[in-house]
């Protein structure tokens, strides 16, 4: 007997409107979250997601059933987001002077007095290059070699961007921690 996902997929392969709509509703949340991690604004994320859905529906017949379907569509949307990033990379590749490594930050110990929203907010504040590398490495699980190929940069650039992202995040989170500690006092 076919599972719900299989029914949706076979419906989408037959180009059935209802199946496509169910698929869109089912995966909107997870894919929108993914797009937002790679885009600067919600509007841009929606554009990417729309293109991603188009690619999913056009290529769904290529899904051979091996591996998780969710991972398959996420991979398509990540690729779409990366295409979008590369298209606009001339605007994104810049370094924030505040992000430069401060060795004192590395030695400081971080406290967990911040929320999930704080982290999300601070990740969004990273420079685009760092943010994309950070997401590809941390969430999508790409290796630096793969990231280098995807973004057409060197492996060392990918490593540098990741390190820069983490240190920058630590710095921002330390600031929050300090502020919150002071507020408590």
């Amino acid at each position, binding site marked *: 007997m076919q599972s719900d996902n299989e029914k949706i997929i076979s419906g989408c392969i037959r180009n059935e*409107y209802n199946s496509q709509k169910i698929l869109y509703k089912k995966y909107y949340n997870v894919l929108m979250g993914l797009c937002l991690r790679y885009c600067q604004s919600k509007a841009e994320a929606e554009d990417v997601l729309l293109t991603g859905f188009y690619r999913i529906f056009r290529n769904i017949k290529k899904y051979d059933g091996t591996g998780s379907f969710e991972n398959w569509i996420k991979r398509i949307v990540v690729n779409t987001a990366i295409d979008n990033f590369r298209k606009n990379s001339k605007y994104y590749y810049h370094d924030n002077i505040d992000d430069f490594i401060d060795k004192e930050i590395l030695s400081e110990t971080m406290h967990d007095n911040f929320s999930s929203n704080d982290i999300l907010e601070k990740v969004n504040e990273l420079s685009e290059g760092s943010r994309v590398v950070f997401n590809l490495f941390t969430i999508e699980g790409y290796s630096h070699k793969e990231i280098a190929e995807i973004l057409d940069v060197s492996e060392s650039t990918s490593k540098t961007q990741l390190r820069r992202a983490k240190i920058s995040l630590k710095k921002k989170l330390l600031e929050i921690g300090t502020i919150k500690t002071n507020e408590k006092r």
Partner: protein
Amino acid sequence: MKDDLQHIEELYRDAIIGQEFEPTVSFKTRISFLLMYLQIRKIFILLLILIGITIGVYFGYSSIINGELHQTNHEAIISNEVSENIAIVEDESNPSFTEDLSVSDIIEMETDAYTVDEKVTKEPAQILDAYLQTGEVSSSDKKYDINTISVMNSKEAYYISVNSSDLNLYESNISPVDIDGIFSKNMDEIEPPIISENTLKKARIFSLSLYGSPSITMAGVKVENGDNKYLNIRKDGESPALSWAVGGDIQIHLKNWFIQTGINYSVYRNNKNYNYNYQLLDSANSYFNYDTVWVWIYDPPNLEYPVMVGIDTTWVPVYKDINVYNRGTNQWSYLEIPILVGYQFNYRKFDFEIATGISIGFLMNYSGSLPHFPDVEGMDNIDKLDNNINRTMYNYLLQLGMIYNFSKKWSILTQPYFKQNLQSVFDNKYPVNQRFSAVGLNVGLRVRF
């Protein structure tokens, strides 16, 4: 330090779990259009190809038509008027003139001269007058190598040019008086517009119409398994409603036949005025009726409680009457692409046409509510049936047309039509079959090109 950085990764992974996002209205609209486009993609591409082919054919055909039209005008002039002149020449017993002239010769000669005429700076009538008066063509006029005869009319001027050398006019024995007789006679008789409107109209193989249309639409409902209660409520409560459509058509004319396609936005509505009752179980007031109470008395030595009681009861459900009173309009909107074949004929300034075919509709919007199926307990918004609604609709179309041509290009059209859904607005999984039929009148403008 490393631990901290590692910890950040973990915190971030945890933070993104369970994030909730609501699609914006703009995204919903765009994804709807995307899904719609995926449905019509093949048709859309086919239409683009057809439009491309049509444009190609149009330009190719136009260049041919322009050539033919040029030729046709001359043929019309020569055959209708000049042939009379030849007959007169024959009466004047001028064999040398008539033997050399056939209609095709004249066409050929005239065509040659037509191009030369543009270079003539002296009025052809002046050359002719000079010849009629003196009996010879002056040396200055001979340099044009042409003798042109003009047929004048009070409103418009049309002329026939005949190459003088081909006619061998100078050597002929036609007197100036003869020629004067030939042409002066025809000056009064020739009807001005030799290039007829029909000739021009035939060249216009395309027409584009823009129209708006009020219509009366009515929903026909059937229910599988003959659920009369639901059906009766629907039939009693629904009535035809005033609807509308707006759109544009393009016609490709092949003589009297034409093929028509286009796009229109059609709205199908039906009025509803449901007023019915149903009974709903009132669980708060339902109760058990104690019919019989049985008491068994035992007297075994080891039983502490020697009495057992059995109660025979009946559940008495209490129903409350619920009145449903719902009025308003249910509405379904489609983007439709008609494909029709038709026949057209002309009477004075009017064209009459009849066309039939199908249209493919793509659901754009719907709103309203229907009695709950199958138990008619209350009303359901049509949204609830979203997964059972057909997104595409095929319609049969019969269209009549009366077109008033107020110029060669522009016309006013009135087209009464009948349209019938060929399938239900719901899919096969939903046991209610609802098809709209519409009677409407397109009113609009048509331009030929």
